[in-house]
């Protein structure tokens, strides 16, 4: 059976797994952005927090993904369900690029612009929301793009703890030594990553401030 025939025959299952995958990645990104962007802002406001926060995110990044799933298993509420466990672990991975790019984007705002804003009597909050965040948006988005592509790849491992997604095919294919099964998971995952990269990249270019 050719891979194409295989895809056609199993298209419903593949679609199902792809949707699961998108759901895992989507929820992960929502959490990672909701946590990462405020942390990135905090780092620029309290420089002494920069080391612990970025260091912590860095360490999470270095833990092998399978091991991280394992570590989270005994955590009470998380370990109880596979999808919670997977999303928690994936969120930890996605944090670093988001935190780093948020703080780098804000730090990259022209000093003169910030000084003018302060000298004109803008409050800290106004400077953040009306000047710094709009001007660092494209850098922030670049971090989100990196994190999304990364998460789409790592999310295939979530199948190891039973969270579903395209990893199901890959793990089954490995166990059964069936290349077509592996490809049925790997190809849609790669296409998803490319699509996310393209869409977010285009958005980033549109939002990049002119100089």
């Amino acid at each position, binding site marked *: 059976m050719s891979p194409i025939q295989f895809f056609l025959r199993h298209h419903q299952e593949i679609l199902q797994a792809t949707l699961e995958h998108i759901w895992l990645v989507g929820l992960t990104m929502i959490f990672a952005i909701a946590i990462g962007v405020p942390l990135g802002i905090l780092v620029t406001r309290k420089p002494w927090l920069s080391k612990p926060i970025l260091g912590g995110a860095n360490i999470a990044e270095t833990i092998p993904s399978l091991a991280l799933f394992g570590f989270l298993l005994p955590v009470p509420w998380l370990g109880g369900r596979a999808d919670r466990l997977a999303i928690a672990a994936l969120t930890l991975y996605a944090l670093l690029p988001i935190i780093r790019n948020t703080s780098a984007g804000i730090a990259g705002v*022209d000093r*003169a*612009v910030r000084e003018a*804003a302060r000298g*004109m*009597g*803008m409050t800290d909050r106004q400077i953040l929301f009306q*000047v710094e965040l709009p001007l660092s948006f494209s850098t922030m988005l670049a971090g989100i793009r990196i994190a999304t592509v990364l998460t789409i790849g790592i999310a295939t491992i979530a199948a190891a703890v039973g969270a579903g997604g395209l990893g199901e095919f890959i793990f089954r294919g490995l166990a059964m030594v069936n290349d077509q099964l592996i490809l049925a998971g790997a190809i849609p995952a790669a296409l998803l990553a490319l699509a996310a990269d393209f869409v977010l990249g285009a958005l980033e270019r549109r939002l990049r401030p002119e100089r």
Partner: protein
Amino acid sequence: MAPRTPIESDRQPAIEFRHVHYTLSNRELLNDVSFSVARGETLVLLGRSGAGKTTALKMINRLLVPSSGEVLVEGKLTTEWDPIALRRKIGYVIQDIGLFPHYTVTQNISLIPRLEHWPPDRVRERVKEMLETVGLHGKTFEHRYPHQLSGGQRQRVGVARALAADPDILLMDEPFGALDPMTRGEMQNEFKALERHLGKTVVIVTHDVGEALVLGTRIGLMEAGKLARVYSPHDFVHAPDPMAAAYMAQLRVYDEAKGGK
């Protein structure tokens, strides 16, 4: 304290420094600086880089606070002012201008009026008026972004933005320093006219003695964190002070090169 009589409050200086010191990591950036600026006057702080001019300027809108001594704006210590309220009534122009790159010219100029919740009609009116004031007429500029403007145009927008909320005091840090000499000369002359017309209290920081003589009603010479003396432009030209003389000699070099007397 006895209530002030109207005459006294009229005489009250717009800005006053009393024995101001400012120390940053063991370096004394300002050393016992005292001066006052009367309402409607233009004081130029003249000196070389690192003389403390900018440091002194930033104390007026409380971007910096003295290590010791006092800075008063309209008779009130800057530390007693709410910093946001203080800064909103003081226009601020810096050499790098710091226009907001994601805002159009109109949005840049109208920022403080909008933050102060002026009604939209009045904001629109004011932007028009300001563009007129700084010589950027008509619709062509309103919707452009800063990166679409020339250096001189950007600086004009910077001045318009600083004047938009009609502040009583205007602070300018090397306002025309980044411009080419031709544009700088034009801007100085225009600003001189504008100054007379607006009647604001202005403090300008510069290292350009020509600019000081053109724009200042008084000139304060700064050196190594100290303010030696404050001169009128006329007195400055003839001052026996060796520093003032050195600045004048520098000007004369240009005059001779021009073939003038």
